[in-house]
């Protein structure tokens, strides 16, 4: 035979030893990316065909605004998960930063009040990270304690919701640039900068490497503790920002807001293929995870599905997605 006419289709072996076909474009394995895009496209298509309100400008703008909170929290969560940790405190930080900002608006210029909200998130993240890195405490336990402590602090600050009257307070959450909400652009910017941070800067690569093998990283002369603190600080900052944006969008800050937000953030990372053991996860796929979650929520809302059933369905969908991923994972 002079030339090979057929190339064997690229395959990998799944954990049970079965062949799984791969989609390879330009030498890169894009199977999961293709699966994601298909899933999102199907969700959008189903939504557009079955719910006539889906494609209305109001709903689409809503959708873009709704994804901001989950998006910001998910990026911060991804950074922490990459180190092999977890941050359960982000939902409480959302409530705290929101209520503090709303409370300060009457006395301080709005940008300053908002900055304080974000800085409070940074502060909480710093404390989480310091406890975890310095005293080698389990991230789950430290951030669980932080979850209840910070929630308590939010109620201590104000037991009742605070609704600032200054219309300037609503700008951040409601302004649009053309058809796109400014808050959505901010979130996209976080994902873009975050993607560059994790793939192309020394601290970003160190964070990924620490989740893979912290001792190797330490022996390579990199300060592991400092990078772990950085990861939790980033997560805290994202949560602080999310709290400010959410309060501004809704127009009212409640100390009870954000319960279980951390679970959606974790879900988005996991749907995006991040490993809770650390060292594996991608910014792009996490963004895909956010899209999937938000689309599902929106769709179920449009159908008027009762919220309890929404929770059930969301849980089942998460299981389905990670099962697909497991079948797709290359055995090394």
């Amino acid at each position, binding site marked *: 035979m002079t030339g090979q006419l057929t190339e*064997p289709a*690229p*395959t*990998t*072996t799944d954990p049970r*030893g079965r062949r799984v076909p791969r989609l390879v474009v330009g030498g890169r394995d894009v199977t999961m990316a293709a699966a994601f895009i298909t899933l999102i496209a199907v969700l959008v298509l189903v939504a557009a065909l079955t719910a006539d309100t889906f494609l209305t400008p109001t709903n689409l703008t809503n959708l873009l605004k709704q994804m901001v909170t989950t998006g910001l929290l998910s990026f911060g969560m991804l950074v922490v998960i990459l180190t092999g940790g977890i941050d359960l405190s982000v939902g409480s930080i959302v409530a705290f930063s929101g209520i503090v900002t709303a409370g300060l608006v009457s006395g301080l210029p709005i940008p300053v009040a908002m900055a304080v909200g974000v800085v409070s998130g940074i502060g909480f993240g710093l404390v989480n990270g310091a406890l975890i890195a310095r005293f080698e405490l389990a991230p789950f336990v430290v951030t669980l304690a932080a979850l209840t402590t910070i929630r308590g602090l939010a109620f201590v600050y104000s037991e009742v919701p605070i609704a600032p009257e200054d219309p300037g307070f609503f700008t951040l959450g409601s302004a649009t640039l053309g058809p796109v909400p400014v808050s959505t652009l901010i979130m996209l910017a976080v994902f873009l900068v975050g993607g*560059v941070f994790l793939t*192309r*800067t*020394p601290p970003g*690569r*160190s964070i*990924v*490497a620490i989740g*893979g*093998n912290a*001792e*190797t*990283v*330490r*022996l*390579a*002369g*990199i*300060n592991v503790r400092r990078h772990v603190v950085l990861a939790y600080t980033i997560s805290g900052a994202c949560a602080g920002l999310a709290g400010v944006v959410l309060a501004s969008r809704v127009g009212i800050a409640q100390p009870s807001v954000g319960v279980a937000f951390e679970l959606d953030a974790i879900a988005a990372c996991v749907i995006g293929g991040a490993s809770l053991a650390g*060292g*594996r996860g991608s910014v792009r796929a996490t963004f895909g995870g956010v899209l999937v979650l938000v689309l599902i929520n929106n769709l179920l809302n449009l159908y008027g599905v009762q919220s309890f059933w929404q929770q059930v369905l969301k849980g089942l969908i998460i299981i389905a997605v990670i099962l697909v991923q497991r079948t797709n994972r290359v055995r*090394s």
Partner: protein
Amino acid sequence: MTLELRGVRKDYGGVEVLHGVDLVGRPGEVLAVVGANGAGKSTLIKILSGAQSMSAGEMRIDGEAAEFRSPHDAHARGIRTVYQELSIVPGLSVTENLLMGNFPKRRGLIDWAAAHARARELLESIGFGAIDPRTLAGRLSVARQQMVEIAKALVSEPRVLVLDEPSAVLAGSDLESLFALVRRLRERGVLVIYVSHRLAEVMELATSIVVVKDGRVIATTEPARTSESELIGLMAGRRLEQIYPDRRAEPGEVRLSVHGLTRRGEFEDVSFALRAGEIVGLFGLVGSGRSELARCVFGAEPATSGQVKVAGGDVRFRAPSDAIAAGLALVTEDRKRTGLVGGMSVLDNIGLTTMYGMRRGPLIDAARRRERVGEMIDRLSIQPAHCASMRVVNLSGGNQQKAVLAKWLLAEPRVLILDEPTRGVDMSTRIAIYRMIDDLARDGLAVLLISSDLTEVLGATDRILVMNQGRVTGELRSDRTTEDEILAHAIGQAA
């Protein structure tokens, strides 16, 4: 039990790694399988153990066709495999590890006295009576853990025992116990399949030797009809005149000196100096404190007392980063746990030590990094040549080791500490590593080569420090000493 493989092929995603292997093992034989890394030994073991299925070919047990779909099937047919990687549970006692799920019971509850007695009996029957069954497995030395691992495989009295590099972490009397055990199993009619890089022990133990190269069996022979050098030649596919380069060192100024360094419970009052252009061996049996010493000198663990001096000045390394800044590099003994980040690319791994120094603004200077890493891949001939974006775990063992070396050489150290750099590495990679160490020393590096391989420590160094129970008990010139003399110091019986 007679085990037979015929025309066994295995491919991974279209790439064939075994091209029709034939193998016959009979009861009471010790069948040694030798070959370079990447020759296909690991795949062969995985097929025997049921961890992987073959793509073509057949397996026959006592003449009957057999097919393994999982390790469980292999166990059911009496085939047990002990891998290099330990699988014991460190938080459980030796007894629990051995009897796992098969405890003697009394009134429905576990009868612990009987369980420990049974574990003790089992350990004694295979000559490992030195291990106390009540100890937590994780408290044992790596060598003893390896022995528990072997004992665990023997609980079910297998008829075929596959040992993958069983001696890699053993030395001294532990090694003797292993050899005695293999001989005893042979007498009992067990077929032992023994995979090892250490040709000396293969020559001593095997009844037949199978040489694997590039996914094929290229020779089947017996110890009486071959020699170590012939085996090396077969494995590498060429004659190798000399394993160790000729050393004629002209040591320069002192690069690193250690004075009375002590870390309580690990080593005491250790002093030595390393000069530019010199390769110093550090020999000691498992548990002698050599790796702990290296980690402490490198700043990975704090010292209780003593000093480390670099180029004359006093230094205190509070973290490895301080040691690296002073020109030190440490290639650790366990590349999986402390040398590599398995999930990351070869590029990320080799670039790890130099990442912060190779910046353009806040970003890593990707072009420069790619170029420097590429040079290292070339220089150490890491295979495959275009591996930069591959995940490092997908390299073969020898090439992973080269990647760890590359990571440290990129940092341009002046003092290189190598802890067991050739453990689990095939002969041709070994030779490449010895050549490289020699070249580095000629360029003026000071090298400390920690090893538990007597031949290596004798052949590849200029001077040898011997450790026993945390103390340096001897300092010998490599060209004027013998293996016996080194060993005598290592077990504290030097005249």
